[in-house]
């Protein structure tokens, strides 16, 4: 698995086809951005395991097979099975994308307060919106990140959210990206652009899922998602990322955040498996008083792989960042956490914590953990820690001594381990919705091993 990025990628070929098929009426600045994207991608190449940042992510499948841009779904769903895709949030604003394309019939932008703009990017391109031109590609750096570059090259649609200063959106805004299999391997490059004005406030759920109705025997999907989030002074944005595209998906996600004075960004990333699910979060704390909370939960089994990668840059004094990532690993799955907190020389009075805890449910599961602090300032409070362990035998016995069977006892303990993450989501509906999905996930794989029968 030591790939060297030298050979021309099939993605570059596919870009030529995309270029021909895509409307020349798109604004010229967008074409410039796309061309830059494919150039950066060509120059950077697909990283291999020799690249320190990609040590735990096997990118070989991206070399080995072609992932042409996804065509429109053959049988787009007529409705959203509410509980499967909307986290129990049946109402409220949402944008739905099927195979990368906006699906207005499933979306709703009613009930938004004044000052909140929620629209799809294609519509913004068609209207040649100046604000989108000004903002797109400023926070996720295509020149440094091959997959951000690739996403930018294929930029065609996605979600655009703009919150005016002081705007508060009470209901969670849901962004659903669904893969409807078409019978062969495909790629989608979903993009999210969020500009949160001063003292604005919102909860945003981005969800990547698979629509199986009518096409169960679909091909694999390479999802290459990029989100750019800009928080102005005092903005308070909560985000939930939920990835559940099935065991055959290769998902690479990048969430890039820039935070200005006294802003607060809190993200909970929940990964329920995939051939590969790698999620990177880059948070840039550029002004004093910013707070960044990154929580994550990954549940993988079989031969699945979950990889969480965070980089938090403390550039100025008096900022806080807190990270808690938990992995539940069964089968022969692999879970990795690489977290970097960089405290720059002038960033005095930084408070940063970072923790990664892993629960191994099988002999063959592997957890890799690399919490890293790079501290160049002297007056800071930073802590990090990592654990890898099995279910607590004492707790198991305690539950069994209360008449609870071993299988139920194990399930309770696994849910308890996960609940620290789900309970931290500051929205009861979302917490319950996530718990239901997690319960469903744990029922199938990874198997909670059992030494005895439950009577």
């Amino acid at each position, binding site marked *: 698995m030591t790939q060297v990025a030298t050979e021309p990628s099939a993605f570059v070929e596919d870009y030529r086809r995309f270029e021909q098929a895509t409307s020349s009426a798109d604004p010229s600045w967008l074409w410039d951005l796309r061309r830059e994207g494919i150039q950066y991608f060509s120059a950077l190449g697909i990283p291999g395991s020799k690249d320190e940042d990609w040590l735990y992510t096997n990118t070989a499948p991206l070399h080995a097979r072609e992932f042409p841009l996804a065509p429109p779904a053959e049988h787009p769903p007529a409705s959203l099975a509410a509980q499967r895709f909307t986290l129990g949030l049946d109402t409220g604003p949402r944008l739905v994308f099927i195979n990368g394309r906006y699906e207005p019939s499933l979306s709703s932008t009613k009930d938004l307060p004044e000052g909140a703009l929620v629209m799809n990017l294609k519509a913004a391109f068609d209207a040649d919106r100046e604000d989108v031109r000004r903002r797109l590609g400023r926070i996720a750096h295509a020149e440094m990140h091959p997959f951000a570059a690739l996403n930018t090259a294929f930029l065609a649609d996605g979600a655009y959210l703009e919150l005016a200063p002081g705007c508060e959106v009470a209901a969670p805004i849901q962004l659903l990206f669904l893969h409807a299999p078409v019978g062969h391997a495909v790629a989608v490059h979903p993009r999210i652009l969020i500009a949160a004005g001063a003292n604005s406030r919102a909860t945003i759920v981005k969800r990547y899922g698979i629509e199986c109705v009518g096409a169960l025997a679909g091909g694999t999907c390479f999802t290459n998602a990029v989100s750019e989030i800009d928080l102005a002074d005092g903005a308070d944005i909560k985000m939930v990322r939920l990835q559940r595209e099935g065991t055959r998906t290769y998902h690479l996600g990048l969430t890039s955040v820039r935070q200005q004075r006294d802003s607060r960004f809190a993200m909970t990333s929940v990964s329920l498996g995939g051939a590969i699910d790698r999620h990177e979060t880059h948070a840039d704390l550029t002004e004093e008083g910013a707070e960044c909370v990154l929580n994550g939960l990954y549940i993988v089994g079989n031969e699945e792989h979950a990889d969480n990668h965070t980089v938090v840059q403390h550039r100025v004094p008096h900022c806080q960042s807190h990270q808690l990532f938990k992995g539940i690993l069964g089968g022969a799955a692999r879970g990795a956490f690489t977290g970097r907190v960089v405290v720059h020389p002038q960033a005095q009075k930084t408070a940063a914590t970072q923790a990664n805890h892993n629960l191994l449910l099988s002999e063959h599961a592997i957890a890799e953990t690399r919490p890293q602090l790079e501290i160049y300032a002297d007056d800071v409070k930073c802590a990090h820690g990592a654990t890898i362990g099995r279910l607590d035998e004492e707790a198991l016995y305690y539950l069994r001594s*209360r*008449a609870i069977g071993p299988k139920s006892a194990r399930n309770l303990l696994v849910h308890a381990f996960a609940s620290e993450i789900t309970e931290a989501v500051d929205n009861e509906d979302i917490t319950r919705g996530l718990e239901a999905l997690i319960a469903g996930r744990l029922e199938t794989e990874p198997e909670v091993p059992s030494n005895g029968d439950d009577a």
Partner: protein
Amino acid sequence: MTDNKRIIEIRDLHASAGDKAILKGINLSVNAGEVHAIMGPNGSGKSTLARALTGREGTDVTQGEVLYKGEDLLDLDPEIRARAGIFLAFQYPVEIPGISNSTLLREGLNAVRHHRGESELDAIDFLQIARSKADVLEMDHEMLSRAVNDGFSGGEKKRNEILQMLVLEPHLGILDETDSGLDIDALKVVAKGVNELRAPERSFIVITHYQRLLDYIIPDFVHVLADGRIARSGGKELALELEEKGYGWLEEAPAR
């Protein structure tokens, strides 16, 4: 006493933890309705006896047998023993973040009810029971929604053990040094919980280092454990004698 009133019969029980032999031939019978106190110095095997009776892994029974209501107990898994009506109040209750007290209690109670052929309780009926038991122990109802023992004080943990016992209504309650670390007020509340459960069909084994608890839970019998054997048995006055004389005499006196 006839055999059909016998709750538990321990015959020549030997047990070890790791390579170390701890219990070296315990004989003890407890009949329905009786409270037996087991006293003894540290290291005499009191807690090991509790663990052996509840099926704790790491405590190996090497010899002897235990009959619970006439049936062999030692081959049963811990949850089966619990469903059959054996309850251990832990000396060191385990903290379980992420599982609420009420979840633990409801899962446990429903498993017991299922075993008894009774229907499972719904959330509302369960809560009513749990709250009424909490009231007996002067516990805030809010304790039911807190994670099991997580961040509880020593006294709260012990009280929580008794709450679980009140909810599960065992036939044999084993209290492993439930009094240790309790102030006198907490001790009285814990004793009240135990006395609440005392009934002609229910028995208790109360393990304690000190006589103090036995002022409030009056035992029918007192046994002194020393070096893995019962060195002496008597009525409740034996506890007072121990209080006066300490355990030092055990080392000189032969078992009787």
